[in-house]
């Protein structure tokens, strides 16, 4: 319809099973957002966790099919979902995996560096926090 527009992000070769998972994830995020707006954090968190897991699955499928850009988008969304629910270990892992890709666009690289640096700083703080000592 828009013949003059530049190419978008390719989803060539993705099947209906992928689309179904993508739709499920999108609706989980929408529901989570509404719940967060209603201050229902405890109800939002399980939806964000499920969304993060699906985002990683979608990123993996896209990477296998050579849809690199789409894989990056799903993986970065997964990292932020994990961070939003307080699972910094998973957020850091996904962020570092993205940063290991030398083709990652600069803006996304900066975003992931900000996320992982922030988590790293918190880790250092928590590791030295006496009240959190295990013994």
């Amino acid at each position: 319809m828009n013949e003059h527009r530049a190419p978008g992000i390719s989803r060539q070769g993705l099947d209906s099973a992928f689309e179904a998972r993508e739709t499920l994830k999108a609706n989980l995020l929408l529901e989570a957002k509404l719940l967060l707006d209603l201050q229902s954090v405890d109800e939002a968190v399980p939806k964000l966790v499920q969304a993060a897991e699906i985002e990683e699955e979608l990123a993996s499928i896209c990477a296998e099919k050579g849809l690199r850009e789409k894989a990056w988008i799903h993986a970065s969304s997964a990292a932020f979902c994990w961070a939003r629910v307080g699972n910094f270990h998973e957020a850091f892992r996904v962020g570092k995996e993205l940063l290991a890709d030398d083709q990652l666009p600069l803006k996304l690289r900066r975003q992931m560096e900000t996320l992982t640096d922030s988590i790293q700083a918190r880790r250092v703080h928590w590791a030295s926090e006496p009240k959190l000592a295990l013994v």
Partner: protein
Amino acid sequence: MDEACDEVVLEEAMKGHRIAAGLFVPFVIGRLRGSSPKTEALFTVHLRDIGEQGTQQRQLRLQWSPKSGVSLPFGVQENTVTEWAALGMASVIVWRYAGLHIRDVTIPGEKFDYWVNGGNEDFGLEVSGTMMGDVESRHGEKVRQLRENPAGRGGYVVVTGFLTREVIFSYNCFEGAAS
């Protein structure tokens, strides 16, 4: 000059999307109806590089069923009602004027992004709504925000002025912005 008036039923427009866009319906009605029993609203829609290069202007008559609204307070802040109503308006506009479907939602940091689908490609979508008269400046702000998207790709912006009853819907191409 007489302009063609496009008629859209709100609830029908929401069926054209992959996501559960029906969630937005009560918010749109809440913003457009207020406490009145109205079941329609007339908008001026400014299309910029949509379908063809350049600017076009359309009149849109948006109608809804009185059964779709909610009479209870939403339990969220006013700006949240406007944000969700703006998402509902964007769902109507991208479907009606560009044949696009909202397909996906992501969480980059503190804000949500939307992806619309046209054929075998996804495009970014920035959405905003305002209860002030600042539709043009808000649109400029959203275009700048779209330009900052980590994917570095062009995409669409929809800004709805609920007070002024106008919408700006634009396609924005950022050549060389990928990195």
